[in-house]
């Protein structure tokens, strides 16, 4: 015969102060756990959406990132003539020869400088990235000192808003448009005409060549051919893979940090739950004896105390998750160690994180409640009754 769940619930309610303290300790742990998971998820989401599986990106061999890369014009032209490059409606290849550099800009409100990616685009750049939408103003006219800024740049950097100007390369550049890049890393970039930027930065080579493939399954063949072509010194990768590699260190850092924090914090919370449950058992020796005398068996007592501990941790888990869900309103912007440039990403809550957090809180409850519950279930009826 089982002891009703109501019994466990009433017990928690009777010792409100203890319950609140223990549950809030657990809530904080679940909050930290969920927040870090959400951050890693947000980073992941940003990077996955930045690249497109159908696109391939060509950079100089061993250069690892666009900023460090340099692709000579002649080499870019060879890539352009590959048969695997898809042609657009106008018969021209869907291929963008881009120049990517970093400029340091001051943030609004503080004088702190941060590195921002500035990308010189060519005709097909927009067609290759359907995620990008101009929300204000117009595209930079070819041959002019006009630039457009991603929403995250426009909001956070001085001189990034529409109508404002930035000075670099001995010229003033006017921001004539703002683009929405969804959840992608492009939102932290500034775009301008590639020929103008190459001129301004005195940089006669492209940084990367990106193109859409006629048939994405031909990628492996294309990669093998281009990388062994004696005229070229390039690395070819799928755009999705390229962006995943770009933040590998960041993702690893978040993972290691998150895991070690969660383990240490959960030890603290498990100890809290254990203290609470041991005292719950110690205070109720007589009661346990009575229950046993009434005919409830050892297993029911064990179940009742474990249930109490699980309820306690579940309350904590729900509270923690509730507050963590508000973190979705925040965007983290920091330097990506690998690209050396700003990257903005948000906390992102997924269904998976919800159940993992709740499961995690229940595991903590079980870990904290198991030993005390076993102690309760092993009590001798006569001695327990005499304790009162």
């Amino acid at each position, binding site marked *: 015969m089982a002891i009703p769940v109501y019994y466990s619930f009433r017990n928690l309610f009777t010792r409100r*102060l*203890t319950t609140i*303290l*223990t549950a*809030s*300790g657990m809530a*904080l*742990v679940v*909050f*930290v756990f969920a927040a870090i998971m959400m951050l890693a998820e947000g980073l992941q989401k940003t990077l996955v959406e930045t690249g497109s599986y159908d696109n391939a990106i060509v950079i*100089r*061999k*061993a*250069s*690892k*990132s666009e*900023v*460090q890369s340099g692709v000579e014009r002649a080499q870019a032209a060879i890539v352009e003539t590959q048969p695997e490059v898809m042609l657009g409606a106008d018969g021209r290849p869907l291929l963008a020869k881009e120049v990517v*550099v*970093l*400029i*340091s800009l001051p943030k609004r409100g503080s004088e*702190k*400088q*941060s*590195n921002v990616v500035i990308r010189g685009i060519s005709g097909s750049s927009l067609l290759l990235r359907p995620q990008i939408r101009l929300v204000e103003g117009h595209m930079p006219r070819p041959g002019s000192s006009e630039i457009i800024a991603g929403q995250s740049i426009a909001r956070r950097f001085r001189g990034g808003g529409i109508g404002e100007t930035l000075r*670099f*390369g*001995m010229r003033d550049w006017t921001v004539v448009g703002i683009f929405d890049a969804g959840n992608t890393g492009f939102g932290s970039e500034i775009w301008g005409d590639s020929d103008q930027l190459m001129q301004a*930065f*005195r940089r*006669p080579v492209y940084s990367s060549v990106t193109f859409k493939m006629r048939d994405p399954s031909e990628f492996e063949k294309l990669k093998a051919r281009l990388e062994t072509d004696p005229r070229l*010194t390039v690395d070819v990768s799928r755009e999705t893979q390229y962006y995943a590699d770009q933040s590998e260190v960041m993702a690893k*850092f978040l993972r290691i*940090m998150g895991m070690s*924090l969660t383990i*240490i*914090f959960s*030890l*603290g*919370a498990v*100890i*809290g739950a*254990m*203290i*609470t449950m*041991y*005292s719950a058992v110690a*205070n109720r020796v007589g009661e346990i004896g009575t229950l046993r005398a009434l005919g409830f068996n050892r297993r029911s007592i064990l179940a009742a105390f474990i249930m109490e501990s699980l309820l306690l941790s579940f309350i904590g888990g729900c509270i923690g998750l509730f507050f963590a869900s508000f973190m979705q309103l925040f965007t*983290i*912007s*920091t*330097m990506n*160690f690998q690209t*050396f440039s*700003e990257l903005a990403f948000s906390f992102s809550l997924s269904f998976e994180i919800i159940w993992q957090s709740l499961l995690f809180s229940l595991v903590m409850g079980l870990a904290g409640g198991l030993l005390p519950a076993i102690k309760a279930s092993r009590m001798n009826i006569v001695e327990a009754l005499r304790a009162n």
Partner: protein
Amino acid sequence: MNLIKLLFKNAFRHKLRTYLTILGMTIAILAFGLLRTVVSAWYAGVEASSANRLVTRNAISLIFSLPISYKDKIRQVEGVKQVSYGTWFGGIYIDEKNFFANFAMELKTYLELYPELIISPDQEAALLRDRRGAVVGRKLAERFGWKLGDVVTLKGTIFPGNWELIIRAIYKGRDKSTDESQLIFHWDYINETLKKTIPRRADQVGFFVIGISNPNQAAEASAAVDKLFKNSLAETLTETEKAFQMSFVSMTEAIVIAIQLVSFVIIIIIMAVVANTMAMAARERTGEYAILKALGFGGWYIAALIFGESLVITGIGCALGIAATFPAAKAFGDAMGAFFPIFNVAGETIYMDIASFIIVGVVAAIVPTVRTVNIRIADGLRKIG
């Protein structure tokens, strides 16, 4: 004296509960200490910088270079004692996960500007004689088992190709804050190669390091240097080495703030745990405290008993936590050497540990004390268990 004895007796009446609470406190202080050390590791570069050094870089951003011809103009600026130059090399040793900082510098002037890198004179001479020679930090040499004369091949990311270097010197850090995990080799080696392979990138440096005679003139000297190159193709930005290092930290500020916040969260969690323990202890002893009151002990005495007990528990936990922080930080620093070359527990961290144990102990005791002190004697005596 009796009071202190009583505090310890009280604290260890419920042995299991007290041990668990102390364990929790130990873990919390340990975690707090490690997180604070991670934060100070973040600032290690800033700590190690000297007030006597300025850094000049391209005003657009660090990835743009400056012509080597600027060197002589900079040297003429008043207050400038010495100029060194070079570039971030960013080479990869075998695999990307073997990351360490590597620079190509004009080594003679660089070693003069960085007296904290200690090299024996014969190694220094050998290093300066060999254009392919490189100097590595003690820790880095240990990490890969390098010895003098070993050949190390770096794969260039910014400068294409494989670069063969010969270890000619191993430096030791003068101070605890000196990074002993860098590799530095001759800028000439890169430049001579670039002249042959990519002439347009030759004779360009990433940054100048300027030694000034008087740190108080840093602002004037910086302004004077930048004024020299105003409205040129490559405008410069000169700042103190500290500000230069700080700019890297501020770019990753969000992470530092997050770690700091999280380090306080662990203290709040343990506060809840200790408060819970104290609430239970006070509840069990309501009757006893009522008897003490009936005997004529005042509210302050009872308060001292509860606060004292709470502080005894948190204090023991804190002491154990601090003791564990040092070996843990050593182990963590060894394991994460690639991320954090400098990983030392700062004295400040210990003070913060002590402050947090006092805060946790006091806050945890407030509610139980108020409840106990305010209860009427008769009610207290009536209450059992």
